[in-house]
């Protein structure tokens, strides 16, 4: 066995023909066979000896490849003159030839024209040896997931970050042998530290004015990238803590920070999605986001976060990270789960709906029947908790809102109530009426647009008026945000709250404008959104309306139901922000859950339209108070 392993070592000798050839080359002919054999054995032995010595030089030269210089050195050891002319490092300069029954290796010596050598341009001088040390120590990224919401996302984020780390680390990780080193920190200058402190305090502080400024700063300042990791951690940690404490207001502030970060064109968030996305998704689907789910309007936060999610999908989803499909899968999975609570269910549907009409068409419409049955069970069933009922209501209105616009566009005209019931079950009739309304609204809007020639002409402007406010309840409600990504932001503060003095009379912030052409038509084609924020005198305020928008600018008006038409609405803030284009146009009049507003919808839009007449004459950027 052992013998098989080893080659027959002692038998390898040069063939006698080689001896003959060599003898001939130095002029000795007719060498006898015996002498050849003796010679070849001797020569083989000497060659082996030299090779062994040469190996020694190779080892000490810390190489794995034997070079001709090693052989030279070995010859030197034996006091033999080295073979000159074999200095090439890489190749053995022998050529092989055969013919006439002879085979031989020879050293090719070409005739070289000197002038050729002289005239050819010199090759580049090889670079000199240099020493290089890594600038930073290798660092390992923490893979501790912050949220269990989306483990897949976590993983991906860490991989993306880990790419920079040296493969050794990766290997160490795999083997579980390496202890993770603490994340190395990048130093911030004192100014940056101050800025960071101010901004974060303002963002979560109580002063709305300061917050607005801070958010604006985040959204516009270039050169924030150094603080980006800190912001990202701030947000994700903040969400983690405040979800547990059910602090709705802070969650809203944090989401607005996310929105602002996304709006900043100088920041590239992809590297921090692993922290941001779990935070956002938490705000969409968390079971409980506020202390009193029956009273507080956490639905708005879900809507808002869902819009953020949709926006980041649109911006960052690539074929490699597959954010959109993974998000969709996550939402769908928990939506399909029977045990999912209404709050989470709402979040999932909102998250899916925001991803666009295609998603609605393929994922939501087919499930309308099932969902309708569920809602029916709650709303018509005998014993249900108030919370469930509210949840079911919200889900219903959400479904109606999103599906109606899609159906209005896709379904052929005769809107037959019975047909709808057959198709969509319990929700069918309501849906039908919504669709009808939607169609009507679209037509109406088109007309209005034609009338409001000034600013928003070419594409039809869609005015969305949304009113919310649950009943006339509670003076103690905290101010809520209305911030609509991709459309508009309504801010309402409650003047009654002592801590928040109502904002000064007027304030215009022009955040972005597109092409600065003088013609207003061009200016406003799709890139301006006008946000009107009103602070109403009474206790109920605010909220959101959302509309998936289109090429047209959307204007959202917030008004209080009671005083909405009263003429003397103190509109206080106009924020003009840029509007990303999106592919669908929808017209949304109002959320169905508010009975009083339905009647006032068109007047408001009308009025808004007229207001637009007023404001519209302002060329790009500036906006006059109404």
């Amino acid at each position, binding site marked *: 066995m052992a013998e098989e392993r080893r080659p027959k070592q002692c038998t390898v000798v040069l063939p006698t023909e080689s001896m003959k050839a060599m003898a001939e080359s130095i002029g000795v002919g007719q060498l006898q066979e015996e002498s050849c054999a003796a010679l070849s054995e001797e020569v083989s032995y000497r060659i082996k000896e030299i090779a*062994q010595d040469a190996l020694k030089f190779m080892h000490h030269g810390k190489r794995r490849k034997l070079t001709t210089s090693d052989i030279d*050195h070995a010859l030197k050891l034996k006091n033999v003159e080295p073979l000159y002319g074999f200095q090439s*490092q890489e190749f053995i300069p022998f050529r092989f030839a055969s013919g006439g029954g002879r085979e031989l290796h020879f050293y090719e010596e070409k005739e070289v024209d000197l002038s050729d050598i002289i005239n050819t341009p010199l090759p580049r001088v090889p670079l000199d040896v240099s020493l290089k040390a890594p600038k930073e120590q290798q660092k390992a990224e923490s893979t501790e997931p912050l949220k269990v919401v989306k483990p897949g996302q976590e993983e991906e984020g860490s991989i993306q970050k880990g790419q920079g780390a040296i493969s050794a680390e990766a290997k160490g990780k795999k083997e579980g042998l390496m202890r993770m080193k603490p994340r190395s920190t990048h130093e911030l200058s004192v100014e940056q530290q101050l800025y960071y402190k101010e901004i974060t305090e303002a963002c979560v502080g109580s002063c709305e004015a300061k917050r607005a400024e801070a958010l604006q700063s985040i959204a516009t300042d270039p050169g924030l990238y150094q603080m980006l990791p800190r912001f990202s951690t701030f947000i994700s940690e903040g969400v983690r803590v405040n979800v547990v404490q059910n602090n709705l207001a802070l969650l809203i502030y944090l989401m607005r920070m996310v929105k602002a970060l996304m709006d900043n064109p100088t920041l590239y968030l992809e590297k921090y999605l692993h922290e941001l996305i779990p935070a956002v998704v938490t705000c969409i689907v968390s079971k409980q986001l506020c202390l009193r789910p029956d009273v507080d309007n956490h639905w708005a936060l879900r809507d808002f976060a869902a819009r953020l999610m949709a926006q980041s999908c649109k911006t960052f989803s690539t074929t490699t990270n597959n954010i959109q499909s993974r998000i969709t899968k996550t939402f769908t999975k928990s939506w399909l789960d029977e045990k999912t609570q209404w709050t989470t269910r709402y979040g999932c549907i909102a998250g899916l709906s925001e991803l666009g009409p295609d998603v609605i068409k393929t994922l939501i419409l087919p499930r309308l029947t099932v969902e309708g049955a569920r809602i029916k069970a709650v709303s018509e069933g005998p014993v249900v908790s108030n919370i469930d009922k509210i949840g079911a209501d919200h889900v219903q209105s959400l479904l109606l809102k999103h599906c109606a616009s899609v159906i209005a566009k896709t379904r052929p005209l005769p809107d037959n109530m019975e047909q709808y019931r057959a198709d969509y079950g319990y929700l069918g009739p309501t849906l039908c009426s919504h669709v009808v309304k939607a169609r009507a609204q679209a037509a109406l809007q088109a007309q209005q647009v034609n009338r409001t020639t000034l600013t928003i002409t070419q594409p039809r402007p869609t005015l969305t008026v949304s009113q919310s406010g649950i009943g006339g309840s509670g003076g103690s409600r905290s101010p809520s945000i209305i911030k609509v990504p991709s459309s508009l932001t309504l801010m309402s503060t409650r003047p009654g709250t002592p801590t928040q003095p109502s904002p000064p009379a007027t304030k215009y912030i022009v955040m972005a404008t597109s092409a600065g052409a003088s013609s207003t038509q061009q200016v406003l084609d799709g890139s301006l959104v006008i946000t009107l924020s009103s602070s109403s005198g009474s206790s109920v305020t605010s909220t959101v309306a959302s509309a998936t928008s289109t090429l047209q600018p959307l204007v959202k008006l917030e008004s209080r139901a009671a005083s909405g038409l009263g003429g003397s609405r103190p509109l206080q803030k106009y924020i003009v922000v840029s509007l990303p284009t999106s592919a669908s146009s929808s017209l949304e009049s109002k959320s169905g859950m508010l009975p009083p507003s339905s009647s006032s919808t068109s007047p408001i839009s009308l009025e808004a339209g007229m207001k637009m007449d007023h404001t519209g004459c302002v060329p790009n950027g500036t906006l006059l108070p109404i």
Partner: protein
Amino acid sequence: MAAVQDGQLNLEVEKDIKTEITNDGSGNINANSSSPGSTSSGGKSKSPAGSGEDQQTLLAVLQFLKRNKLTESVDILRREAGLSADADDSPVSESAGAGSGGVPSVGADGGDANSLLSRVSIATPVAPPDCGLDSHGGLATPIYFHSSNNCACTVVAASGGEDQPDVNVVLSAYSQQGDPVLYPLYYNGLKKFIESVLDCHRAELSQVFYPLFVHMYLELVYNNHENEAKQFFEKFSGDQECYYEEDLRILSSMSKKEHMKGNETMLDFRTSKFVLRISRDSYQLLKRHLQERQNNQIWNIIQEHLYIDIFDGMPRSKSQIDAMSGSLAGEGKRDANKAKVFYGLLKEPEIEVPLDDEDEEAENEEGKPKKKKPKKDSMGSKSKKQDPNAPQQTRIPLPELKDSDKLDKIMNMKEATKKIRLGPDNLPSICFYSFLNAYQGLTAVDFTDDSSLIAGGFADSTVRVWSVTPKKLRRVKSAADLSNIDKESDDVLERIMDEKTASESKILYGHSGPVYGISFSPDRNYLLSSSEDGTVRLWSLQTFTCLVGYKGHNYPVWDTQFSPYGYYFISGGHDRVARLWATDHYQPLRMFAGHLADITCTLFHPNSNYVATGSADRTIRLWDVLTGNCVRILTGHKGPIHSLAFSPNGKFMASGATDGRVLLWDAFDDVELDDFTAATGHIHLPENSQELLLGTYMTKSTPVIHLHFTRRNLLLAAGAYNP
């Protein structure tokens, strides 16, 4: 120098003998062919009996009887002789020595050479008093004489001393004794015997195989039995332990007597006895077997070429033997490892830390540490109390500390307080320095102790020095400029530097061959480099010029290293002799001879009193700088040793070899010599070595050439990027 001369001398001696041998060889062959029927030669070979003269007579008679085909009488005589031979194991070499005494010149030369050699090499082996063997080595016979006659001796026994022209004809007639055809039979017989003995003895006795095989093969080759040698090799080479493969390859290429001349491996086998450790029981078993079989062929080889170290106790197991075996010349002898080694550290000189410095540190904690500090100092000096294992402070003269050295020591102590404690949970951070564009030419790297400089030795004969701190490398101004400097100014040290020469790296030209070893002096003023051209060069890092070229090694110098106290340095290379130098002597102070193959790496013990050398003969030797004696021979590696390291406390040593293993040695205390279960001398934990592995770090495409822990326990590594 002396050793080299010795070597040449010996070679000449050997040559003389060999020529005689060859002259005689032809006659021998004829004799061989004339009596082909000498099948019982094995029996006849038990020649050595009685005193030299008796033996000769006896042999003559035997020869005569055989010639006359009186086999009966031969048998009788042989039996009797055999008994007497057993009773009195008079070493053959003695008779051979007596015989060769007829060649006075050879004997005298050999004796001289050997006395020289024995002075520098290992202490003469003394057989244990209870040893049944009358040890050959224990004789006053000069080693070299003995070695050059090794073959002759064997031949005296095996082939009847054909190579001794002056030995009487009777002996030469015994050339048939070593019938080549029988060698495999002998070997096989022994193999069968060993395979049949009890398990506990088998492992020990198997050790005999390899040296026997080698010597039998060499005998065959020496006697021009080329084909038999080849067959013998092919038949039995597969039986040998796999770690001897390298040697076997060299052996296999040797198929002619002429090849043996000047072959290093040959020389190794003949100049040194292969050392085996065998328990008394096993040895008795072997001896009895060989005597029963009258297998004098093997018996002679064992006596001539093996040194069997017999111990009382349990036979060792296979794994114990494997842990120790593998070197070119067997295990280290017990006696060789008996000398006391003072492995403790030297007392650190008392350095009064300047007060203002102290205040600086004390300020942080407002006076409180001021009280603490003296306490700490006293604590420090307590640890500096004379270690019982440490050598005398003045055992070897060490250079006096200069002011700059003291400053450096203070820095060192300060840094040491910031040292990070490393452990399995706290692995070191690593900084890797890559040499770019080195074109596979980087051969050696060294860091200074304070990690401020990196030096690289290159295959293109250059040495390059880099500064890795912002402080650039500057040269001292020329003499003319220096004379203009105000020598009284405070910053004179700064002024003597030439700002114009400031650069991050400097190239040192001077060698004429690849630079294989490189070492900074502890004070960072000098750099040593050793090269293929046989020189060691000392460079000044103030002027960036070569100060001395130490010539002594005539062959490539594989490694060199400064003493931790400076001034001394050690070098070792292809000539198998390690040399100890002092920077201000151009001739070596000590020469350490004893390795059987190239010295591949050299290292000073932290207390500077000892020097460790690793060699391609797969042993590590520890030498005493004071006496020049070898105080430890550490065996166990199965491949050439390529790196050595001492623990900072001087108690342990680690060695790495091409067999892919790292061995940790704890061999400097008094090894409990009789307890062989514990006396392997190195910690060998194959089962849990995986657990000992703390981390694996991959480079991209860069072989790691050098590693270095900074004073704060950051790990620096260096290598050439090799795409």
